């Protein structure tokens, strides 16, 4: 841990300083496997250069032979990139690009529980990661949409075939996106907000 002298801490650039009225925050989690484009998506819509928050995870590894009593502990640093969008003078939206592995989710208090919803970012070359993530979000009751990040060399599957492969309920929106493009990433977030809004409507 290397703490720099507080006089040398670089805070937000002057254009990134929030107005004093900005006291309400909401968050959305962008979750997916390694290299699926979470940070790219965060960066393309964020008004600030994406930042990183870290947490140290201590894993206790118990020896195979229970009688030996041998335990080893290893500390791993887990990083999470995030960005920010000012919605109004009062309201700020934070976007967190979160690793797909559930063991990381407990490191940050209420990461999913308090989130308005989640975007599951999918790479069609590695569907199994997304399959696991979707199952865990369903278990936790976190509403989500699925966004398929289009990689140039990835096979293109019709949305319906992917829906079947991911065992995704009909009501959950699924869209194609290019995480590098601000408009495309913004549209994914809008899809999520529309979906959350529809959940608030009385069902006919």
């Amino acid at each position: 841990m290397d703490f720099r002298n507080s006089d040398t801490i670089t805070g937000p650039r002057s254009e990134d300083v929030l107005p004093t009225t900005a006291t309400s925050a909401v968050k959305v989690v962008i979750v997916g496997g390694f290299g699926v484009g979470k940070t790219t998506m965060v960066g393309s819509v964020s008004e600030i250069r994406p930042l990183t928050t870290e947490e140290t995870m201590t894993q206790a590894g118990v020896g195979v032979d229970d009688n030996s009593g041998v335990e080893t502990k290893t500390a791993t640093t887990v990083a999470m990139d995030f960005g920010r969008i000012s919605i109004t003078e009062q309201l700020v939206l934070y976007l967190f690009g979160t690793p797909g592995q559930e063991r990381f989710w407990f490191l940050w208090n209420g990461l999913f529980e308090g989130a308005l919803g989640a975007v599951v970012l999918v790479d069609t070359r590695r569907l199994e990661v997304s399959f696991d993530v979707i199952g865990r979000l369903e278990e936790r009751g976190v509403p989500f949409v699925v966004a398929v990040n289009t990689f140039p060399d990835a096979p293109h599957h019709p949305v319906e075939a992917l829906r079947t492969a991911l065992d995704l309920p009909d009501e959950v929106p699924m869209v194609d996106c290019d995480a590098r493009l601000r408009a495309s990433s913004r549209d994914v977030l809008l899809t999520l907000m529309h979906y959350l809004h529809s959940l608030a409507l009385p069902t006919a």
Partner: protein
Amino acid sequence: MGDPERLYVITGGPDGAERAPLDLVTMIVARDEPSPTVQPEQAAILRLCRAPLSVAEISAYLSLPFSVVTALLTELLATELVESRAPIVRAALPDRSLLEAVMHGLQKL
């Protein structure tokens, strides 16, 4: 590797110490200028939070783990050097006017 004793000092105690229930997006605002008696890390937080800043941003700018920042903030909150505003969290019934505000804000991007 850093000095483990140092980490212990800035978290203010062993693991499991009581901490304020802070979310990644709890907004923090300083209520006062740092006095000479506060720790350098806490002085840095007070300087950073002259304008509102989320706990996640404080963690990022100070390059300190989230759990260390929450420990530092717990003390600053107890001594009323900062104030916090809890985030708006997902409710059982979604708040439609909030979602509409977010949509409107996103459309301006």
